[in-house]
């Protein structure tokens, strides 16, 4: 039989660098093909060639058995290939309908036929069971909705092959489930899907076939039913996964004490409502919760990025309430931010400059208010070696680092302060397995040295893996705190949804 799409021996060279080295993939009608690999494995390059954004050095592409070539996205779209990018490309002031039909608007006597467009979108939405509100503005849509708009846009353009680039990186667990259902449904309707990801549980849930890339080569090509997460991970990383270090028992005296803090917020409900929490030395406290239940505000309140209306925050014996960010950092607080591009770095600044934040005014790197760049460069180079950050040069822009590498830089910077207390918010979001292991190990190591860590993550697996105690947040409150040995994904999910746990299991909680 002929495949719907076949890429044969695709090679792409940039100078001496082989980004893709003889990669072949096959895709049948109605099939979900997952392409997995770590950052820099060559997934994106391969897809860029398929989407016409890059021309291959060698190799051939066959569509329904016929050899073809793509000279640009427009060309690919015409031949039935659509791509949903990781970062959405929507006009936030346009409605959902306008965003979907853009470039292919139904025309009536030279005018945009808005009514017809809206009907078409509604029909498409019903046909593929992808719910959207056609008249809503894209800017008012949630992340999950925006992604659905992107998928509909591709369908509207008549795509038979849909490429989804890291589609779940930005979604909540619930939205991920919905998306996976949609992907399955589209495949059942005869569409072919290419899913680019490094999240293996999702691959196992939705894919039919898996192609694994590492360093620009194919290291695995298997049917889903014949493989397992462990096997895929091994093919991806090229070695067995590490086991985390032992955790020694050393919960010490209270370090961070949050006492009944409240933030009113704009709506009728307070964003933080009389929240209390303690992190001890030698302890990792995980915060679980569906995003938007006050986790971000809690982090900002502790770090001083937002002020509280009520309550106290203490670090050791120092009261932090109302103090500046700089004061808190000097008192021994480091912070891996939840959004690395918004808070953690300046894209236009060099890698060195992004790394320098918080160090530039430290005595060791500052003389007569001149920054001692030479001494500092050594420090950054140390981070780059230790965390295996792939950077062209320290003078390259931070924005040119891949997400995972930038995250590693930020983690290295914040760990480098060697503070007693660390807030780690989404420390491994969008990061590959290798980097994730590194970061987890580093956090655990810090705990084992007797420092206190507050871990906030939307990945329950991460919370369960690292935390000594797990606090569940719902609507600005901590609804329960579970000990490590008592916490399961099921129990946490129930609490996260705001459901009270039934009597049987609640009584072993520790006080905050």
């Amino acid at each position, binding site marked *: 039989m002929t495949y719907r799409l076949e890429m044969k021996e695709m090679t792409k060279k940039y100078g001496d660098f082989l980004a893709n080295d003889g990669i072949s993939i096959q895709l049948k009608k109605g099939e979900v093909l997952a392409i997995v690999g770590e950052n820099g494995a060559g997934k994106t390059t391969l897809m860029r060639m398929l989407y016409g954004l890059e021309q291959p050095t060698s190799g051939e592409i066959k569509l329904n058995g016929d050899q073809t070539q793509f000279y640009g996205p427009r060309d690919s779209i015409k031949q039935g290939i659509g791509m949903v990018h990781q970062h959405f490309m929507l006009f936030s002031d346009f409605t959902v309908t306008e965003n979907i039909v853009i470039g292919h608007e139904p025309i009536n006597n030279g005018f945009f036929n808005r009514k017809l467009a809206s009907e078409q979108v509604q029909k498409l939405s019903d046909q593929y069971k992808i719910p959207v509100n056609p008249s809503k503005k894209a800017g008012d849509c949630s992340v999950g909705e925006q992604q659905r708009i992107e998928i509909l846009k591709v369908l509207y353009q008549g795509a038979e092959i849909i490429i989804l680039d890291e589609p779940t990186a930005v979604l909540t667990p619930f939205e991920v489930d919905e998306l996976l259902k949609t992907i399955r449904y589209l495949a059942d309707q005869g569409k072919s899907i290419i899913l680019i990801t490094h999240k293996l549980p999702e691959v196992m849930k939705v894919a039919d076939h898996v192609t694994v890339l590492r360093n620009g080569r194919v290291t695995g090509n298997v049917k889903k039913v014949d493989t397992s997460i462990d096997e895929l991970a091994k093919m991806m990383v090229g070695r067995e996964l590490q086991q985390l270090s032992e955790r020694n028992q050393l919960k010490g005296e209270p370090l961070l004490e949050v006492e009944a803090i409240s933030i009113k917020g704009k709506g009728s409900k307070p964003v933080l409502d009389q929240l209390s929490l303690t992190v001890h030395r030698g302890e990792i406290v995980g915060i679980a919760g569906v995003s938007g239940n006050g986790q971000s505000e809690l982090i900002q309140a502790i770090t001083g990025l937002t002020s509280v209306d009520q309550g106290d925050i203490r670090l050791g014996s120092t009261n932090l309430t109302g103090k500046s960010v700089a004061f808190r950092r000097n008192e021994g607080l480091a912070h891996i931010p939840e959004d690395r591009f918004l*808070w953690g770095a300046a894209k236009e600044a060099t890698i060195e400059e992004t790394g320098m934040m918080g160090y530039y005014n430290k005595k060791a790197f500052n003389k007569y208010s001149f920054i001692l760049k030479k001494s500092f460069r050594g420090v950054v180079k140390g981070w780059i070696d230790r965390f295996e950050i*792939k950077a062209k040069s320290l003078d390259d822009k931070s924005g040119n680092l*891949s997400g995972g590498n930038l995250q590693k830089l930020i983690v290295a910077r914040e760990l480098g302060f060697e503070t007693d207390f660390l807030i780690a918010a989404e420390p491994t979001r969008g990061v590959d397995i290798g980097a994730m292991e590194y970061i987890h190990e580093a956090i655990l190591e810090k705990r084992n040295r007797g420092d206190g860590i507050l871990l906030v993550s939307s990945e329950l697996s991460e919370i369960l893996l690292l935390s000594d105690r797990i606090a569940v947040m719902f609507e600005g409150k901590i609804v329960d705190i579970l000990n490590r040995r008592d916490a399961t994904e099921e129990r946490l999910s129930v609490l996260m949804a705001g459901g009270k746990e039934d009597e049987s299991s609640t009584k072993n909680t520790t006080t905050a």
Partner: protein
Amino acid sequence: MNLQRKIQQLLKPLSQPLLAVLIGLFTGALAIALIGESVIDTYKVMWDGAFGNFYFLTATLARATPIILVGLGLAIAFRAGVFNMGAEGQMVLGAVCAALASLYVPGSGFVKLLSAFLAGFLAGGLWSLLAGWMEVKYKVQLLISTLLLNYVAVLFAGYLVAEPFQDKSGSAALAQTPMIDQAVWLPKLFTGMSVHMGFVIAVIGAVVLYVALQFTSSGYEVRMLGKNPFFAEYGGINKSKVLLFSMFFSGGISGLAGTVEVLGSQYRYVEGALTVPGYAWTGLMAALLANSNPLGTAAAAILLAALQTGAMGMERNTEVPLEIASVIQGVLILFVTAKFTLNWWKVKKKASDINGAV
């Protein structure tokens, strides 16, 4: 390989403004051709008018002096990510206060000179700080407040020299202060030439500002605030403090632009002498053209001044009207502000980027 990269790094920030200038000149050429004049001859006359002999060269540098200083002041604000549009008002207030200080502060010429500089800097700085404070305290948009404060400053300065401090000695009652004492004059760099000590001050200012922005903690704070205010705040930089600090220096240096014009060239504050030639707006263009790099701003300021003095020479010697310079400048503004070239460059770069891989 390494050297090649270094050169590329040096040239890259230059490529955008150079391209803009070339397109500007090309458009100017079209306009000249439309009038029916020879493009090459006209540009030759223009070049001669700007750099043709020592006299014209120094005239260009004299004209560039206030433009450089205004550009430097604005560069600080832009680097901090705030749009200070109030250079004109800050410069004019600086000029009038410097003139008044050199007229009325008692003491030796040196004391008068120092107080003139201090007054010029403080007047511009505080005026600018006012807008910054309104932004920090009441969230009044800086872009708008600084723009509007220009009118207040220029009209107030006009009132000062038309009423209480007007020069009544001459027969014609012009809106200007009396002439300042010769002891306070900034010396000319060459006898008979118009370029004065202010030019040296401006160039030194450019170097100092470059070093300060690039190598000091305060410079780092200013730049990070401009590149990502959230990142700056997260890292413990006091946003309001740095913003106010940047606005103060930004306005202060614009005030100095007015000061050196008064002390080095006009020897009094004359109403309209600073606003009519559009120094402030040319300075703004210089800062934008150079992407707020202080050294680049100085170079761009000289270039723009040359364009203006060159155009004057052109008008003297050819049939082509002065407005050609405005055409070229207009195109420059268009290209610089639209960042057309930058985006074009980025698309080019992205296509060839190795690290496009996720």
